[in-house]
């Protein structure tokens, strides 16, 4: 085995450090694996190099987007000429074509396959042409915004649909729209990647790397999630609920292997002359935890409650006995909206219309707990885990601590998940510490914290 040139080692080390700085847990052993991998792959093939790094260093899908961004910065594509004559031609055409012509070409590319090298090359040429902005006197900088404004791919949609379809409407249009939105997304990403590359070339990799990588999806704050992130978070929920359910039942099963199945054991002993060598055990009874969820559905925590309702819904399918209640300043049972097989988005939509959870529209935890104890006296019993989800901000109303204490006393366990950062607890109208002294309160701002919490639930 030969030693790679020093510059490659430096680059490798720098890259691994940058990954760690961006929150990827890369151990020294994994760094070594990656270095070994570099020795056996063809370094001139950039995609192979990328995948070799990914296979050795990235062990969670949530970390992949950040990895790709950093890889593009540390191992930028070779520009001009390397892609063959067709690509060079593409770049040349882009340099001096008129805008309508460019938009024509873009539409053509967007209807095709985003993996086509011409696609990336076009994005690069467009950044070269439109992406430069005078940031300060004498200083140039690069942005994606002017590129997308000049070409405005969104305004091409109608034209592309007309070209792709014989007639509008129905399923074919849905399918075509889906394809176009995917390619537009790919184009936007290609432009952003090239902008990052150009900035890195001018002002150094380290400077841009810090701002370019967004936190992995399991660390996105519930209260600050963008619409886009919320959609991705929703996709995390079902696997999460399944994972939680498996965890709950696995934990319970351990240590209790089931009772001896006497008949089967005796019958099996016949083949060994009556000596019971193999013991057969009855399968243990499946454990069915009962869960009561009380969820704050007010506007201040709407993203959080949206997410927790989805979680409740997912848990509902995993367990036989989950009762869900939603509240703002009064409380209503919403279990029926989440019947198995129901459509979850539909259910959340109906929640605000059908359920009786709003009196005046200002969250009032005290009133909620009292109403809850009064209307559903049988909901919380000795086998129930009570789960309260909310920010404990009660608009300066009476807290009804006594009622909550009684509820928590009846339940087997009681937990409170608070989507606010711990530092903001007890500020303003927050009653975090008062409630926290009655029911153990956990900070729960992202999927990672939620997953960590449910591990303690069993």
């Amino acid at each position, binding site marked *: 085995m030969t030693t790679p040139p020093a510059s490659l080692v430096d680059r490798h080390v720098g890259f691994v450090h940058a990954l760690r700085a961006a929150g990827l*847990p890369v*151990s020294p*052993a*994994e760094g070594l*694996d990656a270095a*070994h*991998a570099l020795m*056996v*792959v*063809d370094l001139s*093939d950039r*995609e*192979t190099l*990328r*995948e*070799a790094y*990914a*296979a*050795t260093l*990235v*062990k969670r*899908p949530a970390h*992949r987007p950040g990895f790709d961004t950093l890889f593009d910065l540390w191992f930028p594509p070779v520009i001009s000429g390397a892609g063959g004559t067709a690509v060079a031609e593409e770049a040349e055409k882009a340099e001096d074509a008129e805008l309508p012509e460019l938009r024509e070409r873009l539409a053509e590319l967007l209807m095709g*396959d985003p*993996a086509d090298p011409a696609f990336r090359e076009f994005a690069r040429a467009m950044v070269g042409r439109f992406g430069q902005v005078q940031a300060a006197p004498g200083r140039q900088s690069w942005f994606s915004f002017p590129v997308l404004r000049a070409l405005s791919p969104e305004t091409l949609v109608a034209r592309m649909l007309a070209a792709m379809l014989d007639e509008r*409407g*129905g*399923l074919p249009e*849905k*399918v075509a729209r*889906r*394809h176009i939105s*995917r390619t537009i997304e790919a184009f936007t990403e290609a432009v952003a990647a090239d902008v990052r590359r150009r900035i890195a070339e001018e002002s150094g990799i380290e400077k841009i790397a810090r701002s370019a990588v967004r936190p992995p999806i399991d660390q996105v704050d519930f209260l600050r999630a963008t619409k886009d992130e919320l959609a991705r978070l*929703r*996709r995390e929920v*079902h*696997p999460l609920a*399944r*994972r939680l359910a*498996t*965890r709950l039942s*696995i934990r319970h*099963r*351990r240590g209790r292997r089931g009772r001896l199945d006497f008949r089967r054991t005796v019958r099996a002993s016949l*083949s*060994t*002359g009556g*000596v019971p*060598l*193999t013991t057969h055990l009855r399968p243990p009874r499946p454990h069915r935890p009962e869960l009561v969820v009380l969820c704050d559905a007010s506007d201040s925590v709407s993203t959080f409650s949206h997410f927790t309702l989805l979680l409740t819904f997912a848990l509902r399918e995993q367990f036989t006995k989950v009762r869900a209640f939603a509240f703002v300043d009064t409380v209503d049972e919403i279990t029926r909206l989440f019947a198995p*097989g*129901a*459509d*979850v*988005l539909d259910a959340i939509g109906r929640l605000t219309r059908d359920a009786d959870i709003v009196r005046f529209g200002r969250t009032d935890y005290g009133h909620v707990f009292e109403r809850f104890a009064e209307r559903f006296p049988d909901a919380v019993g000795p086998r129930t885990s009570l789960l309260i989800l909310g920010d404990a901000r009660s608009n300066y109303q009476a807290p009804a601590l006594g009622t909550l204490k009684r509820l928590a006393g009846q339940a087997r366990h009681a937990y409170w998940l608070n989507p606010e950062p711990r530092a903001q607890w007890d500020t303003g109208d927050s009653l975090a510490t008062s409630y926290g002294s009655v029911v153990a309160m956990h900070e729960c701002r992202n999927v990672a914290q939620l*997953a960590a919490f449910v591990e303690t639930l069993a």
Partner: protein
Amino acid sequence: MWFASPDEVRGRLAAVDYLADDGIATSVFLAGALGKPLLAEGPAGVGKTQLAKAVAQATGARLIRLQCYEGLDEARALYEWNYKKQLLRIQADDGAWDDIFSEEFLLERPLLKAIRSEEPTVLLIDETDKADVEVEGLLLEILSDYQVTIPELGTITAARRPYVVLTSNATRELSEALKRRCLYLHLDYPTPERERDILLAQVPGLPAGIADQLARTVATLRALELKKSPSIAETVDWAHTLLALGRTELDEALIGETLGVVLKHNSDQVRAAKELGLPAR
């Protein structure tokens, strides 16, 4: 050596009808070249198990499969003593106490079989996430040193390193220790272009136009928020169904009629029909 380059991986897997993208080809190549186990994770039905089978088929190696489930233990994963045979031996011959722990009474289970195999072997540890946490501990020794310790016999080291593929649906997070020892491959739903090629490879006689339409329709379905997104396997089933029906044109009515092949929950079907504007049944 298993493969000489990622390109060779791609070629030889394609010869057994498995279409590998850059990620798959590179990790499959590295797993062979670095002698490390490959952990393939992703949703059900994207071809994780199929990948191990394809590697075995492409290299002419023997495939040994360990299917994981809750309650899987050493006796069923690694080795077990043949108690009945031992008992009979003791009853037949009083002086046999000494040699009842020998090769003759050892029952090989998949892991030991793979370690001791003289011929090239692909060891598939399927659905690792279904097994209990203790099994992961058992796997660690085997996966890092390719050896097994049997108290009565001593340590058995691999005659020839097997090519190890682990699969997981990520229903629970595998331990850091296990992940650190493995190369990681996240398999996800393919792009419509790749799925079209998979359909064409897997379903002979399928017109290219329909394959393209099917792949794009399935991609549209996956973008909806469904309980269970259609897998590649189900797309392939769908293509077979259309062929069996003898239809050459994929229209909305036909999609509506055959939606049950890819969507297995009533609520998913209702949602898809509503969102895609399919005719009501």
